[in-house]
């Protein structure tokens, strides 16, 4: 609920640039983060594990992590680079949506498989969620990059031009977010391999979920490699980031719905 109100404030700030909306947005996002954190702590104490085992739990944790990362970026606490509030306008509605889904599907005493109560597994999911959060931010930044670049290119300067910061800024945020995301994704993968090797005797490389996820990881790796060693930048990497995120979304939604997979949970 609070995420919804916050996104409204962000949207109003974006459209009309009024001081009161900005302060309201900042207040509500802190409030939302705080309440959400309290809820998660309550879950942790109640379940005696990190709440990542079911879809709704994982989504909820994911929303909280992403909001936290964004908030830290906006406050300029993580890097020298401060995230611009205009990004909040686009990130918060997504989070709001996901959080609503999480709450709708939430069941207090869902049975979970015994294998999932393993610390290594929990760390695997946690790292993956962190990396997805970072990829989300990169995705939004890249999307805004493309939108702004298009406006400049068409020589038709409108709302995005007057409200958004520079292309270089989005480049920077997106790239840094991919760096962070890639780091956690790699850790998550390693832990995932380890758990999977223990749980399943035959290691199923042919699992569609697994394949698609590896594919998205590869895209982000190319993103990273191209930037570091070839000198890619600008719209090319922005497009790559969007592609990588689309694949993740694909694996989340389409694969989960259409194919049966061993990796059922998320």
């Amino acid at each position, binding site marked *: 609920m609070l995420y919804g109100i916050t996104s409204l404030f962000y949207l109003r700030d974006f459209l009309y640039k009024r001081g009161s909306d900005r302060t309201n947005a900042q207040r509500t996002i802190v409030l939302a983060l705080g309440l959400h954190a309290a809820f998660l702590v309550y879950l942790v104490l109640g379940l005696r594990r990190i709440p990542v085992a079911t879809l709704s739990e994982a989504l909820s944790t994911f929303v909280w992590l992403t909001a936290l990362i964004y908030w830290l970026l906006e406050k300029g606490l993580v890097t020298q680079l401060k995230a611009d509030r205009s990004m909040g306008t686009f990130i918060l509605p997504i989070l709001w949506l996901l959080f609503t889904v999480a709450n709708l599907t939430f069941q207090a005493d869902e049975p979970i498989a015994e294998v999932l109560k393993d610390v290594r597994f929990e760390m695997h999911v946690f790292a993956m969620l962190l990396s997805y959060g970072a990829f989300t931010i990169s995705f939004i930044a890249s999307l805004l990059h493309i939108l*702004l*670049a298009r406006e*400049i*290119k068409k*020589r038709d*300067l409108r709302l995005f*031009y007057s409200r*958004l*910061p*520079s*292309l*270089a*800024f989005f480049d*920077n945020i997106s790239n840094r977010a991919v760096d962070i995301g890639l780091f956690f994704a790699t850790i998550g993968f390693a832990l995932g391999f380890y758990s999977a090797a223990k749980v399943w005797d035959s290691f199923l490389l042919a699992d569609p979920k697994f394949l698609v996820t590896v594919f998205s990881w590869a895209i982000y790796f190319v993103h990273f490699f191209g930037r570091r060693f*070839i*000198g*890619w*930048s*600008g*719209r*090319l*990497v922005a497009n790559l980031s969007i592609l990588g995120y689309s694949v993740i979304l694909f694996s989340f939604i389409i694969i989960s719905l259409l194919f049966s997979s061993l990796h059922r949970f998320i």
Partner: protein
Amino acid sequence: MKLVIYTFPNRSNSALLPENLAESKQLPKTLADIGVLEALPVPHNSALQLLLVAEKVPTSAQVRSYISAQNSDDSASDSSARYDRQALHYILEMASGALTDAMSNNLFERLQERYAQAREAGWVGPVLQYIFQRCVWLHEKSRMETDLFKFAIHEHSVLRELAQKIFGQLNRTSTGIAGCPPESAAFLMELQSHGCKNIMLFHDPSAETDRIDPLGQFQHFEKEAFSFTHGDLLLVFDPEYAQLFEGRKLKQQLAKRQSKALLIFDWTNALPVPKNSNLYFYSRADLAAIIEHNLHARKHAAETIQTWIASEIDDFYKWLTSDNRNQFAGIIGATKAMQNIFELISRIARTNITVLIDGESGTGKELVARAVHRFSARSEQPFIAVNCGAIPENLLESELFGHVRGAFTGAVAEKPGLFEQAQHGTIFLDEIAELAPHLQVKLLRFLQEGEIRRVGSNHTIRLDVRMLAATNKNLADLVAQNTFRSDLYYRLNVMQLTLPALRERRQDIPLLANQFLKRFAQKFQKNVHEISEEAMTALLAYHWPGNIRELENAIEHATALAIGKNISPFDLPANITRKEKTNGRMPSFGRVSLRELEKQYIIETLEEFDWDYEFVCKQLGIGRTTLWRKLKEYKINK
């Protein structure tokens, strides 16, 4: 009183204020003879403009004959005129930036320069002073409260904005300029002033580059050396480079750049428009379209300003017809020192800057604080004045910051402090030097963080309060003696307004005295109209240690005692007239010759009265011609 602006097209504005005029300290005789009281040259892009204040509007022919006398070239040209409200509207529009003329951004800057010169030359009187103060105030208001100044309306600033949107900060962006006509100078200046350091110029060896690179700080290259790898921002001023933009050549060029963003500006409008995903291409025509759009947006923003201007014009005529023309928000002052203060108040009122007002006691510090509040955006919000010296030290803290229940004995209920009552408004702390050290710390915290804490409370309260402070002591001395915190002093002293003592602005004494006389005559219901000449001489000669407050009391005293219509010297308090008899103002110059003494005395009096000959003659008891003769004899000039 009439206002008129004459515009003479195709003339340069520069010759209007010859330097030798500054010496005479008054309007040139030719202008005075045609009934002009005050004059101000008004900047224009291509014309000569003159704003005149006169009892009767002079004809354009009369004005033209004056201008012809100043300018050697004498091409007779037609003039156009704006009268009264129209003229005022034009000036106010220029000041607020609502004038949609593409150059209006610097027109007001130039007007301010002209005004300073004209004031130096003695062309400016009370009417122009008033208009200019309102101009400055309106300018600040529209700058702070509208989007008007945010729209770029010059080619070079639009291009710079584009570059910033693409590259972020420009200090790492390298720039190549191909073909360097003099027109590229504006672009170079703009880029350089926004942090662009790495600038390369490509041109023929024969090209004159003195204008665009007067300091020789850029790298120069042969014209043929130019390619797309020479920078992220390329400005092409020469149509010959068109061949670089053709099919294969373009591809080759861009391939070398990987996928780095490139902004190309085509000044010639002649280059083919290239298509590539990382290439942003703007021609001069594209910039013109953006400027067009921005001008339109500006017009929209200017609509609110028009309503401000309309009410400003009404206020002007109200002021012009009222009998307190020498007043600024209730403060009387016709002297240059006070006019400067009024201008400063107009300039700073709309900002939220902390102001330290200092001056001897009785100089009207609170009036100045109220004026700052009245002209600020907070004028509808509370104004709280606190005299820090008048409240016992142990009460002051809870008085200022409030307290919670049980904070100390007697604190039976929660109480908000004066700071909280001033929320969204202004708080004025008089006699700030009397503040105890621990309160200084609290005040510093408020100034730095905008937060206060009630006495005995644990949580802070954020406040939006503008603070003004006043003192009659020299805070710098107190800092040196360690009785006043230096960090607080620097925080307070962002902007200092020093009010002159009354003896430093004796010309205002008659104005003030008559104002007080009017007030007290009404209060005591007495029919006293005038201050006799002898009494006024006594008032002018006295040194007024208690400043305006003392003058006010003296006039109250005199009005109460006065018999008949005049105030005679006998009605004044005894200490004022006694001084006059013994001439308490006799300066000591040591043992010097009589001649030297006379010279020194004249100089001192001249300086004291700001070279106002009329006052000086009155003071010295000599005629104007005698004064002139003495000045010549002693070779005294400004």
